[in-house]
């Protein structure tokens, strides 16, 4: 079963047309000494029925957001996905197409990506957006590289310790071999200490990386932080939760120069961490330094409006080692999902979802911190997620919740780069619009003696 067409008779006809006797003759291009003299050691093939049974049985061993009430966060969230998103994104005309190089054959995708770019700009208050990056973490690194190109400062990136630990790890991996120093600023209070930030920013700094709401769920003073970055000629890079922008001020109004995001909350299923959606938007003046694909409006030979891949002279297939990024395949189908999600919700729907997340998260925090030995790790304003500090041990607390049918987390012990006691005693709790008051009350009751 290899989805093949050629019948034995056709195979013979084709071989005859080529002028060889067998497929083996065609493979003689490969020196004999290099050819594998055995079959690959792979599991036996399965029929569709057997495959379905096998995969269902494995899938059944996983506990998902629908099987256990999900308060898990840390960058991926159980938000509701309207049926239209799945329906449209499962159209073969979209998901079995290639990158839209051939504009006449790809107007559907190109227009959708142009709409995506516009919606992202409307949401973030920025001027231009690319057509997607891999996911939120690499988007931060791409933004840092972009800031180095814009400022021509290649020695120093300053990043808050309240940025997602995995995003910071990626930044280290991406720059480890370069002269660029990554300076991390401790955030013992859960948000940036402006004095500490000021001390670390200097004339060599290319950018300051901020996350809003930050990894701990807390809100940063983005305007002040952007001003500090600008005061030394550095760019302000802000990573946002797109759902929060249904309520929070747009980073474009707060001095951000480059906005990045993990777009998973915009209609993308959890699927164990990917594929998700990297978002990157910036101010107009930096557009020629932007990484990745971007779609531009154009006019065809009949004067008709149309869409094409734009500014391709920045990209690897033309500029090779001088390209603004090595990215080629991006996350087209996820950008499409986000576009459909945003068109369905509009500003009003996003506002309602943000409002529900915010209210329920605050109710959950209030209920859980009313328990003995449980408190908020940080006394800061938060949006849909917060860190609990549990006196008797966060692990036991999470275990008791799990026993009763609730997943909370992640436990902060899994992040090596966090400092104690945040790391040893903290657990994240995220509350989306999908959680009900009954679930929150039942969670509270389940953990009260943990």
């Amino acid at each position, binding site marked *: 079963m290899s*989805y093949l*067409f050629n019948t034995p008779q056709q195979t013979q006809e*084709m071989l005859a047309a080529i*002028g060889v006797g067998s*497929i083996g003759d*065609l493979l003689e291009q490969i*020196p004999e000494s290099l050819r594998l003299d055995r079959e*690959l050691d792979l599991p036996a093939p*399965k029929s569709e029925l057997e495959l379905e049974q096998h*995969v269902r049985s*494995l*899938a059944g061993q996983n506990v998902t957001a629908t099987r256990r009430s999900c308060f898990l966060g*840390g960058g991926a969230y159980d938000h509701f996905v309207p049926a*239209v998103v799945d329906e449209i994104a499962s159209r073969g*005309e979209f*998901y079995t*197409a290639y990158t*839209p190089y*051939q504009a006449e*054959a790809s*107007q559907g*995708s190109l*227009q959708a990506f142009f709409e995506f770019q*516009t919606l992202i700009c409307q949401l973030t208050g920025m001027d231009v*957006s690319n057509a997607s990056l891999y996911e939120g*973490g690499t988007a931060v690194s791409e933004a840092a590289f972009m800031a180095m190109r814009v400022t021509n400062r290649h020695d120093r990136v300053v990043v808050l310790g309240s940025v997602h630990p*995995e995003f910071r790890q*990626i930044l280290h*991996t991406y720059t*480890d*071999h*370069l002269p660029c120093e990554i300076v991390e600023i401790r955030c013992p209070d859960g948000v940036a200490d402006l004095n500490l930030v000021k001390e670390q920013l200097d004339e060599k700094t290319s950018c300051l990386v901020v996350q809003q709401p930050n990894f701990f769920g807390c809100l940063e003073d983005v305007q002040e932080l952007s001003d500090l970055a600008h005061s030394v000629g550095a760019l302000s890079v802000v990573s946002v939760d797109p759902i929060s922008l249904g309520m*929070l001020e*747009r980073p474009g109004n707060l001095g951000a120069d480059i906005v990045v995001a993990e777009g998973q909350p915009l209609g993308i299923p*959890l699927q*164990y*961490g*990917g*594929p998700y959606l990297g978002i990157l938007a910036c101010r107009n003046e930096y*557009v020629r330094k932007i990484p990745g694909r971007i779609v531009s*409006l154009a*006019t*065809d030979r009949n004067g008709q409006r*149309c869409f094409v891949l734009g*500014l391709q002279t920045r990209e*690897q297939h033309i500029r*090779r*080692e001088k390209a603004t990024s*090595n990215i080629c395949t991006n*996350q*087209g*189908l996820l950008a499409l999902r986000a576009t459909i999600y945003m*068109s369905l919700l509009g*500003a*009003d729907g996003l506002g309602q979802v943000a409002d*529900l997340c915010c209210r329920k998260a605050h109710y959950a925090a209030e209920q859980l911190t009313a328990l003995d030995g449980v408190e908020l790790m940080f006394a800061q*304003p938060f949006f849909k997620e917060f860190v609990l500090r549990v006196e008797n041990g966060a692990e036991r607390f999470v275990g008791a919740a799990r026993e009763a049918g609730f*997943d909370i987390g992640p436990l902060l012990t899994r992040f090596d780069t966090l400092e104690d006691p945040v790391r040893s005693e903290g657990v994240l709790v995220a509350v989306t*619009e999908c959680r009900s008051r*009954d679930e929150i009350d039942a969670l509270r009751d389940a953990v009260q003696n943990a």
Partner: protein
Amino acid sequence: MKNEQATQLLFELSVPGRTATRWPDSDVPDRPIDDLIPSRYRAESAPSMPELTEADVVRHFVNLSTRNFSVDTHFYPLGSCTMKYNPKRHERLAGLDGLGNLHPYQREEDSQGMLQILFEMQEMLGEIAGLPAVSLQPAAGAQGEFTSLLVAAAYFRDRGEKRTKVIFPSSAHGTNPASAALAGFDCVQLDPSPTGLVDPEQLQSHLDDSTAVFMITNPNTLGLFEKDIDRIAGMVHDAGGLVYIDGANMNAILGITRPGDFGGDMMHYNVHKTFTGPHGAGGPGAGPIAVRSFLADYLPGPVVRKETAEDGTVTYRLADPPHSIGRMRSFFGNVGILLRGYFYLRTLGAQGLRAVSENAVLNANYLREKLKDILPVPQGERCMHEFVASAKKQKDERGVTAMDVAKRLLDYGFHAPTVYFPLVVAEALMIEPTETESKETLDAFSDALHAIATEDPEMLHQAPYTTPVSRPDEVAAGRKPQLTWSPCLND
């Protein structure tokens, strides 16, 4: 049957007051929002976004979808892209609740089914590559290249060797040099050779103790197997360097030969090409890498390990390799695409996989033969899974370019081949039929190209005629890029 109204931009379809979603009322005690989030953090006004009904959105995107060519609707012989059939069973299985709704921070004991799949995927990819150590983390081929080059850099650093140079042929994908530059290496490009293959003598002249990695696609982007690969790899190894295999063309050699057997030390797969994760109109992909055992400790984490207890109980765990270069992305990887690759491999098995490559090679050679009178292939007697034909003769004789041919094919209902790549072939048309196409389709495609070869050149310069738009002015768009909609666009 075009619906021009529904394919206006979303922003033009918007009517104030329309809504598509309704959300539940809050069920928690009402508190003033100011008590929850101080006003200084909140937006003064809502973002300006379109207002649409659900039916508006559905009709808009369904109509947009009809403005695409796709594998589900058309023959899509885009060279280097392996546009093969994407089985529908993969979509249903990847969407199962147990896979699609699993949170990346779910505990290991509650994710054993997923971890088993990912572990088995690592094992299968290691076997197919002949390179046993696998990381599933890279999000796409280009990130796989970058990851491997960082692995190489870490390896040389541990050995106390300062190696700064990455070498690649002129026919390499643009991602090769771009990834090398990103990883901090100096790029050295070989000159094209008349055969289309790497010239070992020329390569030798660049090899020295500063050589870190030689990157090569095999079969190469001309669809030719690098017959001297064994010797080439030996030369690179003798110079102390590593050989990287760009796996974009793995569809030609599955179960026939393996990168690890022909001298490769590291490689990436494009699961969205070779193993039929659909391409999604530009991703998502998945670019897992496979490397030799001596590089295993440098792989990015996490990887999946299998532990068997004394009583035989098997547990799958996430672990970071001891000298890991670190993390390349958040969470585990592009799991949704890795799953589809896993389903594919479990459906095909060893013989099925080999049959894929045999038929990909058969189809490509058949089509090459059918077209040689009008679109000759300058390099090689035969090809592997794809070939690069040249429209130079048509251009010289009739002024018809590769682009004219590509655009006109759309009118005949075929997606265009890749054009003008690789640069070493004049008026290049890079054609990859894949194994999931019939002789009838290949014959019809050949007939179309033969018909085009006799059509009026003036007419061809204006093609296509049947697509929603024709010949966008990309130069003007590049000079004055218009990257978002704004209300004044409609004035």
